[in-house]
């Protein structure tokens, strides 16, 4: 017989999975999300444990062993991915470069996330004048070309890891503001928000405990997108020589340094280019996946 014979109707009614269980099931059932997550976790571990994993000092130059090819192009295992034009171990520089890329991605997304979310939620919740001001700021920001502004600022202040992070953090909040404003507008009209206000809950409480949990899924998706965005921008700035300065190992810088040799030693460009590609792809896969797995709850 089937579930028709359950004796206690109320017990029978509440047997579905909790939202958390459902989310877990969807997360682990989503291939793209899992692939992105695994790659990102591996790269993060590599970045954290760089001193243990790197076979050589990434800064140690050796003029005797310059431009040695990687193993698969006939090199030896002393330098598995070869050496650069100053004889520095390519693998070690790649491993330390992961630190730079991830640090920039995470911190820049964090800074812009805080700015953009605060502006977007305030605009969506309060409406009226606040909304007008925020919308104006978003439009101003959208009218500025990110790369040019970043180039100008870095050119004035001088390129360094800190400057690049802060500049990107202060420039990439627009998407956060736009998405958070729209999500807040949507959630603000729900009756549970009215119920919380009728209970006497203060405005910060309503925003933090009624609105934020219901827009967090959209926030996470934007975080991933902006992380990838920041990592690519850093690479571009470094490639143009206005980002992270040598000898700091950065993937963008490595591509830049390799470009002179590109016709003779294409691997010098291809290897850092490939890891950059893999990192950004992994983050985007994760973002897409997160959007997929959190969407059904929004619909119900």
């Amino acid at each position, binding site marked *: 017989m089937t579930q028709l014979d359950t004796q206690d109707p109320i017990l029978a009614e509440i047997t579905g999975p*909790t*939202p958390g269980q459902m989310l877990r099931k969807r997360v682990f059932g989503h291939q793209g999300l899992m692939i992105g997550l695994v790659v990102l976790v591996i790269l993060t571990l590599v970045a954290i444990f760089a001193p243990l994993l790197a076979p050589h000092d990434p800064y140690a130059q050796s003029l005797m062993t310059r431009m040695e090819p990687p193993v698969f192009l006939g090199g030896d295992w002393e330098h598995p991915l070869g050496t650069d034009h100053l004889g520095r171990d390519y693998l070690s520089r790649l491993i330390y470069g992961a630190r730079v890329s991830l640090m920039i991605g995470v911190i820049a997304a964090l800074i812009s996330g805080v700015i953009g979310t605060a502006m977007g939620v305030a605009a969506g919740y309060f409406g009226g004048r606040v909304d007008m001001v925020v919308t104006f700021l978003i439009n101003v920001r959208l009218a500025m070309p990110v790369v040019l502004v970043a180039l100008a600022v870095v050119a004035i202040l001088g390129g360094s890891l800190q400057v690049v992070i802060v500049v990107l953090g202060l420039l990439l909040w627009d998407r956060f503001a736009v998405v958070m404003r729209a999500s807040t507008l949507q959630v603000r009209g*729900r009756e549970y928000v009215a119920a919380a*206000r*009728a209970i006497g809950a203060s405005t910060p409480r309503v925003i933090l405990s009624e609105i934020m949990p219901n827009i967090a899924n959209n926030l996470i998706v934007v975080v991933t997108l902006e992380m990838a965005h920041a990592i690519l921008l850093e690479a571009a700035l470094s490639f143009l020589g206005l980002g992270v300065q040598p000898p700091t190992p950065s993937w963008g810088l490595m591509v830049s340094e390799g470009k002179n040799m590109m016709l003779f030693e294409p691997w010098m460009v291809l290897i850092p280019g490939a890891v950059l590609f893999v990192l950004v792809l992994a983050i985007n896969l994760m973002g897409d996946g997160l959007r997929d797995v959190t969407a059904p709850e929004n619909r119900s």
Partner: protein
Amino acid sequence: MSNASASAVLELRGVTKTYHVKQGLFGTARPLTAVNDVSLSLPRGEVLGLVGESGCGKSTLAKILLGLEAPTAGQVLVDGEEIGAQDRMTLARRIQPIFQDPYSSLNPRKSIFDIVSLPLRVHGIGDRAHWEKEVRSILDIVGLPARVMNTFPSQMSGGQRQRVAIARALIMKPEIVICDEPTSALDVSVQSQILNLLGDLRSEFGLTYLFISHDLAVVEHLATRVAVMYLGRIVEEAGVAGLFDEAAHPYTQALLKSVLTPEPGLGVPDTQLGMAYPNPIDPPSGCHFHPRCPMATELCKTTAPRPVETPGGRVECHLHDPQSPMHNPKAA
């Protein structure tokens, strides 16, 4: 009159709410009077049914009573005290809402315990052990087992969610509950359970309800008094028996006519209302109801009727005004 207001737990005096609506990007803002000079008095323990078509202002009135909107003019008194003078926390202990859609009135990210205990936490009453005890007892009162505390709204049916919403509204033992279409999103068999529950809770806790609904059969069943709203004004107010048995206002009569009782063979009634509910930005002159009224005369087009006391309540219609040349209560 002073006697009546003394025993009234909720009293509205000339409450008006005007919005300024901008039409188009560069249009000038025009006033929209959603609630127009509403005076009501609700004695303790009564159920006031508020009926009217969508757009008549009943939801705006509910928001004003909950302190979510401020009236443009007029006063709302709870126990004789004006609510503008009370802070939201005090008001929240006295008036609580139950909303229409149990799918949108519960935060999907919170457990049932979090949702029901929120009022206690916001008001800083007791500690966690106290909250649990209170939540357990209120869940039992609304007919839910204590084990639902750790579940989430998505795991519950519509009727159960509405019980949770009722539990949240009642945990602070308010005096007045504003029920805004509390059963219209529910299935027939669930609706009757919730109506019975609301009826039981009222007698058990001595609650006073403002019951907003478009379902007149439900209002007739639950309410003790009924107010009929049209374009922001209360056009008729009376005891439930008086209103349903001898409706005075032509609009009330049309509403009653449109109720479809489950009696086969009667066909669909002709309400004789004509079509359109007027646009509240452009309310008709004189009596707002005159374009749809089968009894309307020239007088109705030019002069708004004044409220007239009737044996059971109050009505705004020239036919019932002894000083009006149209006076003819039998015609209506």
